[in-house]
């Protein structure tokens, strides 16, 4: 009995993938050229599978601010927020985030994954009940597990199912927390947040919304799905990340609840970890400012998203959700998805490959994500490559059938 026996099935799946081409889950960027281009295995590739929605990772103002912060404050804090790891810049960023979201207080974590661990396991405990959307990200599931709370899943994006379950629990006096995301990372589908808010109001339960993929992307001011649905006042806790629109590493939780700051001395993932580096803090401050002062970035992102959506739909591809910066193309089976992924890559287009059991509905997907930094020429090229790859897939399938 080895510790690694438990991975036998996973290894078998992985071996099958490797037999079909390169390993899609072990891609290395030999050189990252820009927010939308890289060199991989000596090949120039257009990146259509990052979360760099506003393309700010190579913005010169943001880079300068980050370099300046490293020069001023050093490469790392070497301490936790409850010891020597709180700098004035940590507090300043927290204030910026709180004021951007119109909340009383915000807490910053070293990663977005950790923000979910820290906020969820800080808010909920073994005597509480969490009701979470079944398609929640791994970081939400892990935060929920860490909390020790009773965890009940409701059907994805189904406020009626949540309502039914809360009704069943109405005689249970435990504190409850509902968790949903703004836009879901794989399929790009949005939560009907107005309907979830109706449910939470009727049952008098608090709501946490993870706006990881929606901050900077949705809402007139880029505050996310809650802003877009005009229900910000009903979202008790917001969690977000720096690693998508904000182009950095880190995450946050924010709330109007005056008790929220208690998490600073009760949340283990906040307390027992090194605080964010001066570089991460400075980048997030600079990119947050860009979100506030350059709404044109969001417009460009959506223009690119609509263009790719139209291009791929016109070519006959099945796209899982309405147009958004996340465009998930459904393929009929795993072999086709893997073939297409390799064909796209060999022609210089990188997208994410999502396969069961990693996909919420068991489908095989090529997940594309857009950036404000993509040019119209790049979007056209991506469509052209999809078309060629699809033709190659058809030829390959025909050859297989002929051989049988």
């Amino acid at each position, binding site marked *: 009995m080895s510790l690694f026996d438990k991975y036998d099935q996973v290894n078998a799946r992985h071996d099958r993938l490797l037999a079909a081409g390169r390993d899609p889950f072990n891609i290395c960027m030999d050189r990252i050229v820009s927010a939308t281009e890289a060199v991989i295995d000596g090949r120039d590739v257009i990146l259509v599978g990052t979360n760099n929605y506003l393309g700010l990772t190579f913005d010169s103002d943001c880079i300068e601010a980050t370099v300046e912060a490293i020069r001023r404050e050093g490469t790392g804090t070497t301490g936790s927020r409850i010891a020597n790891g709180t700098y004035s810049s940590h507090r300043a960023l927290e204030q910026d985030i709180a004021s951007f979201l119109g909340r009383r207080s915000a807490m910053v974590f070293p990663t977005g994954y950790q923000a979910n661990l820290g906020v969820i396991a800080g808010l909920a405990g073994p005597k509480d009940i969490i009701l979470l959307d*079944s398609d929640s990200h791994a970081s939400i599931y892990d935060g*929920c597990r860490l909390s020790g709370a*009773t*965890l*009940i*899943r409701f*059907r994805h994006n189904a406020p009626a199912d949540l309502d039914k*379950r809360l009704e*069943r*629990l109405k005689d249970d006096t435990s504190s409850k927390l509902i968790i949903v995301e703004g836009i879901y990372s794989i399929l790009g589908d949005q939560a009907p947040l107005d309907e979830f808010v109706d449910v939470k109001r009727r049952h008098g339960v608090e709501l946490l919304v993870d706006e990881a993929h929606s901050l900077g992307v949705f809402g007139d001011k880029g505050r996310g799905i809650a802003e877009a649905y005009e229900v910000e006042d009903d979202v008790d806790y917001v969690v977000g990340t720096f690693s998508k629109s904000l182009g950095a590493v880190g995450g946050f939780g924010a709330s109007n609840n005056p008790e929220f700051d208690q998490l600073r001395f009760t949340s283990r993932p906040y307390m027992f970890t090194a605080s964010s580096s001066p570089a991460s803090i400075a980048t997030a401050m600079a990119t947050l400012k860009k979100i506030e002062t350059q709404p044109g970035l969001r417009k460009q992102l959506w223009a690119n998203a609509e263009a790719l959506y139209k291009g791929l739909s016109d070519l006959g591809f099945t796209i899982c959700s309405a147009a958004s910066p996340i465009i998930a193309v459904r393929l009929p089976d795993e072999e086709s998805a893997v073939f297409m992924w390799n064909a796209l890559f060999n022609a210089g287009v990188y997208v994410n490959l999502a396969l*069961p*059991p990693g*996909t*919420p*509905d*068991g489908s095989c997907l090529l997940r594309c994500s857009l950036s404000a930094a993509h040019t119209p020429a790049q979007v056209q090229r991506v469509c052209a490559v999809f078309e060629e790859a699809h033709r190659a897939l058809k030829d390959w399938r025909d050859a297989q059938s002929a051989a049988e």
Partner: protein
Amino acid sequence: MQWTADKVQEEVIKLLQPFNPKGIEITPETDLSADLFMDSVAAMNLVMEVEDRFEIDIPISLLPDVNTLQDLIDVVLAQLSKG
């Protein structure tokens, strides 16, 4: 509806049929993931169907101990007795 163990078993077997393309005979000893080739997405959908059918909630923490049909029946009966 007063659910007896036998009735619960009968209903759960019905709910398992969509996950049983090979049409094997399902008994209390049937291993849900090994004998019925259920992956985690299918397992989650099955749990949701069971919750709907019996109007119960099954906390996720109970699921790692559910390997066989009997395990699932036991969890359903436990949750029914709470309500």
